């Protein structure tokens, strides 16, 4: 079995099993564990609208902190958009999703994907350097932050190298790229990358909880 066969076969299968099982384990546990008793009468019995509203309002920075977090805010958005375009609209990626989901969607030209991937990589490097050098960020960062960044940077670098056929034969680069993605899959449910699945549910939970208490979220 070649490295590429291993990466496309058993490594992919097992990493996806860990990803799916891990994400549902954490999602199920996190959502159901929240059953605090009301200590006073709820202002609203069902605060669904507050929950949904909070999902939207927390997508923008709070006015009080707007100036201080402008760099993180915009670089965060740019990074996520560049990453999503690179991941979701590169033709080979779509073929992969199609093989898992059973349906695909139109792709973007490779030249555009190369630009978005380069932007994503550059921003992530900038954010990594900031995290390592900013006095406050450095203190609040732990191993989870750095591992999570590492497992995201690796597929970006290996993906660009595979795309450009740089450094080794294409099948080796492709295998290393797949293995780096599989490392991400395995780490995903157990580290901070899980925010991908938890961001909106946790915003909803916070919004609806405040809503029940009559507090503006």
């Amino acid at each position, binding site marked *: 079995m*070649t490295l*590429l*066969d291993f990466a*496309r*076969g*058993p490594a*992919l*299968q097992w990493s*996806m*099993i*860990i990803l*799916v*099982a*891990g*994400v*549902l*384990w*954490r*999602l*199920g*546990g*996190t*959502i*159901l*564990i929240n*059953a605090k008793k009301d200590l006073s009468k709820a202002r609203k019995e069902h605060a669904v609208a507050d929950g949904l509203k909070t999902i939207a309002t927390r997508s923008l920075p709070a006015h009080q902190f707007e100036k201080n977090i402008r760099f993180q805010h915009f670089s965060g958005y740019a990074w996520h958009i560049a990453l999503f375009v690179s991941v979701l609209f590169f*033709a*080979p*990626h779509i*073929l*992969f999703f*199609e*093989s*898992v989901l059973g349906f695909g969607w139109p*792709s*973007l*030209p*490779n*030249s555009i994907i190369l630009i978005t991937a380069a932007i994503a990589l550059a921003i992530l490097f900038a954010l990594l350097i900031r995290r390592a050098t900013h006095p406050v960020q450095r203190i609040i960062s732990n191993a989870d932050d750095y591992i999570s960044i590492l497992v995201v940077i690796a597929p970006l670098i290996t993906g660009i190298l595979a795309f450009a*056929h740089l450094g080794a*034969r*294409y*099948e080796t680069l*492709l295998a290393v790229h*797949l293995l780096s993605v599989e490392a991400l899959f395995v780490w995903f449910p157990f580290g901070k990358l899980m925010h991908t699945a938890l961001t909106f549910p946790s915003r909803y939970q916070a919004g609806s909880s405040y809503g029940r208490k009559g507090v503006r979220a």
Partner: protein
Amino acid sequence: MRKDQTLGAYLFSQGVSRRGFLKFCSATASLMALPPTMVGRVAAALENARRPSVIWLSFQECTGCTESLTRSHAPTVESLIFDAISLDYHHTLQAAAGHGAEAAREAAMEENAGEYLLVVDGSIPIGNPAYSTIAGISNLDMLKESAANAAAIIAVGTCAAYGGIPHANPNPTGAVSVSDIIKDKPIINVSGCPPIPVVITGVLAHFLTFGSIPELDELGRPKAFFGQSIHDRCYRRPFYERGQFAKSFDDEGARQGWCLYELGCKGPTTYNACATLKWNEGTSFPIGSGHGCIGCSEPDFWDKGSFYRPIAAGLWGSRDALLGAAAAGAAIGIGTALAARSKKKRANAAKETEST
């Protein structure tokens, strides 16, 4: 052709002009990635070369490799060089049969000990020697015996080079490649199902010129022919870059000649000269005919999933395993949450009991 006749004399007697011969030498030197200064040496060596003795063994194969080499197109200098070798033993091509044929092989081995080239096509069954025998001799024994005094071995076709289709899962005959058995001789793998004719004449020309084997890649193939992927030299590559893909073999994209990556083309992971040398006098190659590359010059090409499954799609088992993982993950998550709730409830109850 007489045995003592030189290759040059034979070619000129067949009507090949000196200009045509030198053109062939230049093309061969270029194909083999040799510098232009080597053209003269190639010409001198080929012109003065005595007919090399070649013993061709056919094991578990379909004769496609021989067909490819002998019936590829009208006679050219390449095919004349192939004719010019002293092909002392070849099941399909020789007139002799039975004991006479075997006697020819044994005589050639004895007369040219240490100098003859051994060409093998087909894989060797080691599961049970009776799966393939010639004159009562198992393929394994015949290979070992013939290889013992060979100068070099050319494994022609993917079956001889890597086991090929007989080696494919579940490999009922226990088929293996030449290099799985012979470890003490230089082996050149000219893979492909079948291989390109000019590649074998190029390898022969190199052997005649330098008396050695050409530079090989890590899979034992001549780098000059197998150094680049089909994808790198494919004329449809610009469509890949632009993201223009044929979605089926008869859609507008296919008619426009767009990239066949989504239809399972294995060009990016296949190394061969099909896209540059092409077939049938340089007329076309599979991608030129509208079908993706099936990766036939790579080991285990038959076991890498469907020919029509894109490389990016992965070779993972089934969605059932993922559904099972989802169910198991959800069950563990829900179970953990319920257990935590119950624990909390018990703790609260105990607290209330204590306070009363």
